[in-house]
């Protein structure tokens, strides 16, 4: 179980290797990678800047991980979130979950992302080709995605 906030990029193969090396109890590894898209709606963006709340970020991500561990039999997990200025195609966030069985790994990874998107104190600002920029609005669908998990020990229905 580990969390990291970093300006640097991550390498998924290397992260998996460090989580699973020497272990033979793991049968399933799920990764989620969020990347910067080149458009916000129909408008191109030139960069995306990630701001966060140092201290609270780490505390929230640790809570999220503890919650996932209480719900699913995870062998290992990792959350990496980048901050600073990123560009279209760049990695933003990485979640890795490992378990003996695939459904636990899938569900825990999806839960971690839903939770992170609605609770972890990160904010995105998008810059446009004309030099203007705007803070990204929160999406109602993200808090709805989180609410799915409230009354459900396993995977929620849609």
């Amino acid at each position, binding site marked *: 179980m580990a969390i990291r906030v970093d300006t640097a990029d991550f390498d998924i193969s290397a992260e998996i290797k460090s989580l699973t090396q020497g272990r033979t109890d793991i049968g399933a590894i799920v990764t989620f990678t*969020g990347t910067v898209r080149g458009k916000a709606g129909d408008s191109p963006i030139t960069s995306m800047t*990630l*701001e*966060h*709340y140092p*201290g*609270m970020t780490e*505390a*929230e991500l640790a809570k999220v991980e503890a919650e996932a561990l209480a719900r699913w039999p995870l062998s290992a997990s990792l959350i990496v*979130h980048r901050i600073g200025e990123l560009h279209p195609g760049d990695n*933003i*966030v990485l979640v890795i979950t490992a378990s003996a069985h695939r459904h636990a790994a899938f569900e825990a990874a999806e839960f971690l*992302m839903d939770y*992170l*998107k*609605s*609770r*972890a*104190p*990160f*904010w*995105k*600002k998008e810059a446009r080709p004309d030099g203007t920029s705007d*803070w*990204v*609005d*929160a*999406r109602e669908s*993200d808090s709805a995605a989180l609410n799915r998990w409230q009354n459900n020990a396993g995977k929620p229905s849609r």
Partner: protein
Amino acid sequence: MTNTNATATTTGNTVTLRYFAWVREKIGHAEETIAIPAGVVTVAELIEWLKTRNQVYAAAFDKPDVIRTALDQTHARAETKIGSAREIAFFPPVTGG
């Protein structure tokens, strides 16, 4: 971390206010230290008081519904009592991930 302690004496507490994202940009600085004024018990009451300071704060907190709060780095609600919190943060709904 005793922000749910309703019996704490809050008035006069010195707290650090922290601002993030567009709240920070509207306020014009990232943090400041204030003394919690008399009569301010909840997060909502603190926001109402901040709006009375000047036009900059009034504009920044114009729509308190779109501002989230954390007390000592833990998510709080408008009705949460400030209690003995040392750090109070204001920010927009989060958009990471």
